[in-house]
């Protein structure tokens, strides 16, 4: 049965279904309703664990890491300045190989101070050793949070599930909350190493020499690579039990397409409409939705775009000094191809600015009619 829920409340339901034992978080717009809803559940005795009220996101992550080291299932949520403050501890989490799951609700980073959706907060954490999944809507976010525990606990790597601030976090959609019995079938009880033993004391985050360090980092890298089949398998298992799946990416009508739009997050929903409209007008337009960002699905992207002549990447983020971050990553992934598509990068929708179907159509057509690639991204803004 479907319920009308905001994305934030859908996340809280997922945390509830996953029987998370420990939540430490600090409120920040637009994530706060997750915190509030979980708090309410705890107050009613519905939560399977406890909430720890901390004084900052840095402490929230430190608490989740510590709790996870004792072998319990942990959760936190944050956004924007919160994840920026958490940065140091994100490295601690991945370095200590703790399967913490975090939802980041995309919000622009200051300054100037603002609130709208913008992926630069989570993308700034690209190199912290976390898996990152960008979700299109609230339903996908709910399902991905549950899948994230399976992946994280198998790989012993932390997972970040990302959704757009307001568009996803606050808009109310009909959401299917899976039956607890189905989730219990899908997600086993937590069984992760308990790293602390009072009888045999030790400490973590210790100093190592360069050669040890490289071995640990390489192992993390290799295990992250190995999560690719795990992610796929987890997704198909979820689809089998619960009835929904998303893949590492989604290619829509990319076969024999003359132009493919590449999007991530909530903007993908709009892009679906734009592609439909273009196809009705006779263009062979396709769509590539990027879901997994770390690990980056290089082979899957190559497979989807190997025969496509023109690609337009739309980024709701900007790496100042280069271009949109998905565009960079995509270019790098496609470079080994013999027949590389011509790629044009667009910057649109920063800070939650409007990106309408006709804007996306125009970007696709402009790319289609372009003869040579543009090094710098094209800024698209309609006031």
């Amino acid at each position, binding site marked *: 049965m479907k319920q009308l829920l905001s994305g934030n409340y859908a996340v809280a339901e997922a945390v509830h279904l996953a029987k998370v034992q420990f939540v430490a978080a600090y409120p920040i717009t637009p994530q706060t309703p997750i915190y509030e809803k979980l708090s309410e559940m705890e107050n009613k005795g519905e939560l399977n664990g406890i909430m720890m009220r901390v004084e900052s996101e840095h402490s929230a992550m430190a608490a989740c890491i510590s709790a996870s080291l004792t072998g319990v299932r942990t959760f936190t949520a944050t956004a924007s300045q919160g994840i920026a403050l958490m940065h140091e501890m994100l490295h601690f989490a991945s370095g200590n190989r703790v399967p913490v799951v975090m939802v980041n609700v995309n919000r622009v980073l200051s300054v100037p101070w603002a609130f709208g959706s913008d992926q630069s907060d989570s993308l700034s954490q690209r190199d912290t050793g976390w898996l990152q999944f960008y979700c299109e809507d609230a339903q996908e976010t709910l399902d991905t949070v549950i899948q994230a525990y399976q992946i994280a606990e198998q790989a012993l790597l932390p997972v970040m599930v990302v959704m757009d601030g307001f568009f996803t976090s606050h808009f109310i959609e009909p959401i299917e909350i899976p039956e607890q019995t189905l989730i219990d079938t899908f997600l086993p009880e937590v069984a992760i190493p308990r790293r602390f033993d009072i009888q045999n004391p030790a400490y973590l985050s210790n*100093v190592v020499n360069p050669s040890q360090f490289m071995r640990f980092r390489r192992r993390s890298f290799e295990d992250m690579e190995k999560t690719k089949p795990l992610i796929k398998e987890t997704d198909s298992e979820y689809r089998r039990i619960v009835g929904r799946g998303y893949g590492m990416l989604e290619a829509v009508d990319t076969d024999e397409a003359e132009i493919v739009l590449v999007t991530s997050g909530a903007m993908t929903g709009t892009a679906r409409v734009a592609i439909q409209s273009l196809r009705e007008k006779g263009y062979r337009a396709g769509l590539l939705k990027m879901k997994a960002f770390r690990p980056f699905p290089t082979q899957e992207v190559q497979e989807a775009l190997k025969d496509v002549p023109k690609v337009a990447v739309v980024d709701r983020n900007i790496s100042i000094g280069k271009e949109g971050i998905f565009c960079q990553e995509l270019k790098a992934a496609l470079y080994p191809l013999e027949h590389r598509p011509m790629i044009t990068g667009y910057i649109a929708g920063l800070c939650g600015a409007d990106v309408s179907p006709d804007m996306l159509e125009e970007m696709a057509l402009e790319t289609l009619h372009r003869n040579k690639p543009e090094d710098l991204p094209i800024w698209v803004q309609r006031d």
Partner: protein
Amino acid sequence: MKHDSISIEDIESIAPLSRESTEIFLTGHWSSKKPIYVDKTSPCRQACPIGIDISRAFYEASEGDYHEALRIYRQDNPLPGICGRVCYHPCEGDCNRKEFDEAVNIRGFERFLSDRGRVNLEREAPSRLRREKIAVIGSGPAGLSASYHLARLGYSVTIYEALPEPGGMLRYGIPEYRLPKEVLRKEIGYIQQLGVEIRTGVRVGKDASLADIKRDVHAVFIAAGAHGGMRLGIAGEELPGVMEGIRFLRSINLGEKGKTGQRVAVIGGGNTAIDCARTARRIGGREVRIIYRRSKAEMPALAEDVASVEKEGIRIDFLAAPKGLILDKGRLSGIECARMELGSPDGSGRLQPIPIKGSDFIVPADTVITAVGQVPEVEFVRELGLSLSQRGMIEISPENTMTPVEGVFAGGDCAGGKAFVADAIASGKLGAFAISCFLEGKDMKREFQNHRIGTRPSFSFQHFMDPEKDPVDLKGVVPFDQINTLCFPHHARNNNPDPLEPDESIKTFKEVASGLAPARMEDEISRCFKCGTCTQCDLCFLLCPDISIMKDDASGYRVKEDYCKGCSICASTCPRHVIEMRGDK
């Protein structure tokens, strides 16, 4: 579901974990700044003429050891019961807590210690006796203090006292209701028990010759006080009904049944004037008033004593100066006064009173007590060839109390010192120090600098006797801005109570102010910041982010310099500025 691609058999192969100690990493080696613990000097100690280590005594008391606190007081001051009652407490004037809410009741603390603490004379007795003998002329605060410190150094001391009982002005000047004789008897008793001989009833210059005394000893300290009253210099001062204040107080303290008329006028604005007025009120003066030529702000008397005068129904006529005495049928009937106004400051910094023409008025009075200053009665020193100043004072070098005659030293009121008890005690202490340096052949100026407290003319006697036992930076005075006030809640001061209503207290000579009850004293002790004194509060130990501060034992904290990174959190949070960062490259 267990995925094939990832298999983690050994968690320690993917995330490091250590069962070794981190101590092999000397993480503080690159840092040049390290904290050091040095106890410093509180501003109250610097302000105290006697240089008492007040903050350390407060610390010991806060640990419940009142006996040790009293011992610390007695390192520098043999008369804490007296100072705890009558001192003008310049310590409180400089108390850092004054900048926060109100100064700590330091005088009340000193009184509490002397009332409740136990004196251990064995610890004060000299470790060895010296052969030199010293004569002290006068057993007032200066003479007692000099004798006490000389006795502690091992000298044999004899005091010559003209009056029948020892104490000088403490006994014959200060009334019982401010300073009970029992307190005096007890504290003089300790000095006698240390071996000081007091010969009372021997007036030097009359009953014994100063030259004879000097011949038998190695040094003489003259502290004969200032027992003569100054004259007003107006007609009629010899009339019956006109008394010198200091004689009046002395006669009462000698146990004579004093008598005044109904209408008493006291001339003067110092503590003697206040004491005379309050004494007159107690022996039957119905209408007692004080006539003072300046305004309240210029009064040399302590503000709290002025307030008690007013409570006891004594009126003060400010800006009035006597011009002449008025007789009616051969009896005193009043004082003719002139109204004054204040002009520019005089040599003492106080505003000079100037008579207003045609402002004369008459104050009715049948008794006039004059308390306009005191002069020494020390003509006897001339037999040693010493000369006196214009004001009748023995001339000394103020840094070392030496007179021009070798081996003869002088201090207290007779040598022009400030007329407060604490200053007389300080003067006696300086005399003992000077005599010791003289007899030991030490460079007095250098010695004084070594033991001097802050920038004021006081020094630590403990430090002089044994610097090892007083390991305090005497020159480092803790300013208010170095106190971490976040560690201290605001809290009102506990004053010594006056349990009797003023109309009851004027019926007797019973002590007016009471000591603080133990609970209130504890409260007041906790108010004290203990500036510069480590109280082992553990804040440094708890806040050190690198666990580089160790607590070894009662001796305090140890910094593990191999690990300390010099972050300075300990130094900047130390509530009382004991920790400092040192070691800049």
